[in-house]
């Protein structure tokens, strides 16, 4: 399962799209992956002569797979990227291992709840060696641009 249909509905684009594939998807959880390019723009400054993927980018990758892709799936026909927006509303992530340029990460998210267009998930990111890179909780909300919640 690649689910390019869902990835195409995301409101992100390069250089800020951090989803390659969706591997598993049902009403309770999602698994997706992303391989960081060797020349992602942020490696120029993070850090000087020592490129490591920033924690905020890892968090973003976890949110794009675990919140945005998952949320769009859960919203089903209601989602329309021309009429709706998403926002991360909270996160609490712990980091355990660095991710270097060119590394692949696998993100797995498990639904805590999806109510009133707010999705809260437990999320884990692993590297290609199946070592946990980051783990925590993210929450986000989807809203129609016409009707501010």
């Amino acid at each position: 399962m690649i689910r390019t249909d869902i990835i195409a509905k995301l409101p992100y684009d390069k250089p800020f799209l951090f989803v390659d594939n969706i591997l598993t998807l049902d009403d309770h959880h999602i698994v997706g992956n992303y391989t960081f390019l060797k020349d992602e723009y942020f490696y120029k400054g993070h850090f000087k002569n020592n490129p490591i993927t920033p924690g905020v980018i890892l968090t973003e990758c976890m949110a794009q797979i675990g919140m945005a892709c998952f949320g769009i799936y859960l919203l089903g026909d209601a989602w329309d990227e021309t009429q709706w927006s998403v926002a991360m509303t909270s996160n609490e992530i712990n980091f355990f291992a660095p991710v270097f340029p060119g590394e692949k990460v696998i993100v797995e998210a498990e639904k805590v709840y999806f109510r009133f267009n707010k999705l809260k998930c437990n999320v884990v990111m692993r590297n290609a060696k199946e070592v946990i890179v980051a783990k925590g909780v993210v929450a986000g909300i989807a809203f129609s641009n016409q009707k501010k919640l």
Partner: protein
Amino acid sequence: MNNEKLLLKLKTIITPYVQNEEGLNNLSEETDFIQDLEINSANLVDVVLDVEDEFDIEIDNESMEKMLTVKASIEVIEGKLAAK
């Protein structure tokens, strides 16, 4: 459950999500969650979920959209409790 008791329970629920302490100190039936307490829309969902747990009721979309003030919330909670 009388109104005062319900208000107290509601206050306990909303407290962790309040950004405006002064609004919380002056809490009344007229208090607006967004205007007076500066609760964000994502945390409004948490307030509703906590209300569901506390009172063992289920809040539907329509009721959730009404729950923007203390007064409206108490009305929704009382309505759901009465229908149990």
